[in-house]
């Protein structure tokens, strides 16, 4: 009896698994994965009793009943696309409620040795191309939310770069969420295989157009020896949306993975990154910024595993919280035995614009190797009254002073975006948020 109660408490019942339309199983290797995933979701969603979900309660998701994804008018799509204007050329794929819309996509002129393909097409035409690239890690296969993706994904993207290929234009994935009267759910699967010495800039724009929906993307990235993947994501879903993302990355010797995640939208969101630095001198930079208000909940969870010597990682997560919003950061860094000369630094800061907001931080360093440099820091506080006074004494009104300070605080989180136009795209989204929020009374 006690055991059942306990098991119950660790799970939230969620009938989605039984009601969702079965996704196509088009290859033998996929049968096993889908079956394994369905077994994992049979129990429902993890509750806050599960340590990894301590700060993020999925009950609101469990209460949603999802309809089958229907068609969306091209006007909606066009309207949403205005928020996806990068200001530079890119290889672009547009997904509406999880389905690739070829009409809005643009894949002209990829160099030889590079492929960018819709996953739906690959699944029907060439599923063998995916074997070994999906569900590679235990972090994905054992993940309670990723399991829904694995069980039900039907579209997404496959990006492969042969050794030494450097794409001069970024790949821009645009995800538009546009639900009608009933909520919809979609589970895009993004697969990136960056060969030795290759270079890729991957940009995601998650744009909320209308309604309540559950976006559940899972991304699996293999960064080869000496390869570099620069990943930047904007999450600007509707205020009724749930956005729960997992990114799983392996980095080979001398390789580098960079991630910038900017969260503005969704009622409930989580961006979780797992990085394994599998070769010597592998590097990761993870930056995250979020600006939230109302009753929004934003969760950033990262786990970086140093498996070999001379690896390094830098993490900076910063949040701006207004009203009764809640932000959480869980950052685990594991330095495995033998990963000597690891250099790992983590910082998380929260700027509270309102007394009703709340920020939690849970840094965890697990170090099993000698001769490593590791540090972490966490802080939360309000705007500095003296800084406010200084700016106002120079003629800025309260709203302008606040906007400038908030921008100065959060700006660091997008500085790592190498491409100036792309950085400007992110900066403009921050400015738009500030124009709406910082103007109000503190």
């Amino acid at each position, binding site marked *: 009896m006690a055991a059942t109660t306990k098991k119950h408490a660790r799970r939230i019942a969620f009938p989605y698994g039984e009601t969702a339309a079965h996704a196509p199983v088009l290859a033998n290797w996929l049968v096993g994965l889908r079956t394994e995933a369905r077994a994992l979701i049979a129990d429902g969603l993890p509750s806050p009793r599960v340590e990894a979900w301590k700060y993020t309660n999925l009950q609101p998701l469990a209460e949603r009943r999802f309809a089958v994804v229907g068609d969306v008018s091209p006007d909606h799509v066009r309207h949403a696309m205005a928020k996806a204007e990068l200001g530079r050329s890119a290889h672009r794929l547009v997904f509406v409620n999880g389905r690739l819309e070829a009409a809005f996509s643009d894949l002209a002129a990829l160099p030889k040795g590079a492929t960018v393909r819709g996953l739906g097409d690959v699944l029907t035409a060439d599923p063998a191309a995916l074997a070994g690239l999906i569900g590679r890690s235990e972090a994905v296969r054992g993940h309670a939310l990723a399991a829904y993706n694995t069980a039900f994904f039907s579209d997404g993207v496959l990006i492969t770069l042969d050794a030494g290929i450097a794409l001069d234009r970024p790949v821009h994935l645009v995800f538009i969420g546009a639900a009608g009267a009933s909520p919809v759910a979609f589970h895009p699967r993004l697969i990136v295989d960056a060969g030795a010495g290759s270079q890729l800039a991957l940009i995601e724009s998650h744009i909320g157009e209308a309604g309540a929906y559950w976006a559940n993307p899972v991304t699996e990235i293999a960064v080869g020896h000496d390869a570099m993947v620069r990943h930047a994501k904007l999450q600007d879903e509707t205020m009724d949306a749930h956005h729960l993302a997992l990114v799983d990355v392996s980095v080979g010797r001398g390789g580098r993975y960079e991630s910038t995640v900017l969260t503005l939208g969704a009622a409930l969101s989580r961006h979780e990154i797992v990085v394994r630095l599998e070769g010597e001198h592998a590097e990761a930079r993870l930056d995250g910024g979020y600006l939230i208000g109302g009753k929004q909940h934003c969760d950033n969870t990262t786990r970086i595993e140093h498996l070999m010597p001379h690896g390094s990682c830098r993490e900076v997560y910063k949040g701006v919280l207004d009203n009764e919003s809640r932000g959480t950061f869980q950052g685990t860094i594991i330095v495995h035995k033998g990963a000597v000369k690891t250099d790992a630094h983590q910082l998380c800061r929260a700027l509270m614009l309102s007394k009703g907001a709340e920020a939690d931080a849970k840094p965890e360093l697990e170090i099993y190797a000698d001769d490593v440099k590791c540090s972490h820091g966490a802080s939360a506080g309000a705007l500095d009254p003296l800084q406010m*006074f200084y*700016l106002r004494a120079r003629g800025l009104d309260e709203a302008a002073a606040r906007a400038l300070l908030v921008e*100065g605080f959060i700006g*660091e989180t997008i500085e790592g975006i190498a491409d100036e136009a792309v950085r400007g795209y992110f900066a403009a989204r921050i400015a738009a948020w500030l124009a709406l929020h910082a103007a109000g009374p503190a």
Partner: protein
Amino acid sequence: MLEIKNLHATVDGREILNGLDLTIGAGQVHAVMGPNGSGKSTLSYVLAGREGYQVTEGSVTFEGRDLLALKPEERARAGIFLAFQYPVEVPGVASATFLKTAVNAVRKARGEKEYDAFEFLKLAKAKREALGISEEMMKRALNVGFSGGEKKRNEVMQMMLLEPKFMVLDETDSGLDVDALRVVAAGVNAMRRADRSMLVITHYQRLLDYITPDVVHILSRGRIVRSGGPDLARELEAKGYAGVMPVAAA
């Protein structure tokens, strides 16, 4: 231009200014000197409108308006400028961005045309070169990692760009090397005009050698205890506070 009458102010419940009277006419330069902790910076903060500096009695009238009723930004737009004794570091905000925002906020309030990026850069270049401030410093976060002297020069540059009517310089000379002092004083002097007044807070005669005051006041325990001409500052330098203060105040 500025009239302070019987000003009483408290900070954290402690009375710092008690019955301060001071009248500064248009075009005048007044110096305020006084021992550490006598309330000089408190006076400057009260004039600029800092939160927590509670006026409990008295009045401050600026060009016929009740200054104390205005918010800090309204005072700045009306033409009050405080060069801080300790300029505030603002991480993440580039000096140039801040300056352009401030200058345009003030110009807009005055009904003047806002500068575009090009016009502003040109104007800022002239001012910063006059003060020996490098272009690189303008790109750095406001006051962050600036040396003491650089911060003070930066204050004066802001003042030149904002073109106030009434400026309070709170120990702008401290932290400046001899050459910088000359450059900064020249900048301040260049701003002297028949319709612009200054309150110069300082501990040293040195600054007043460059910026000759019309009146010198001695502040002690929150009130003006003696006023005189430029000679008073020299007398103070020679005799110290005990030597210049009326017996009752010392």
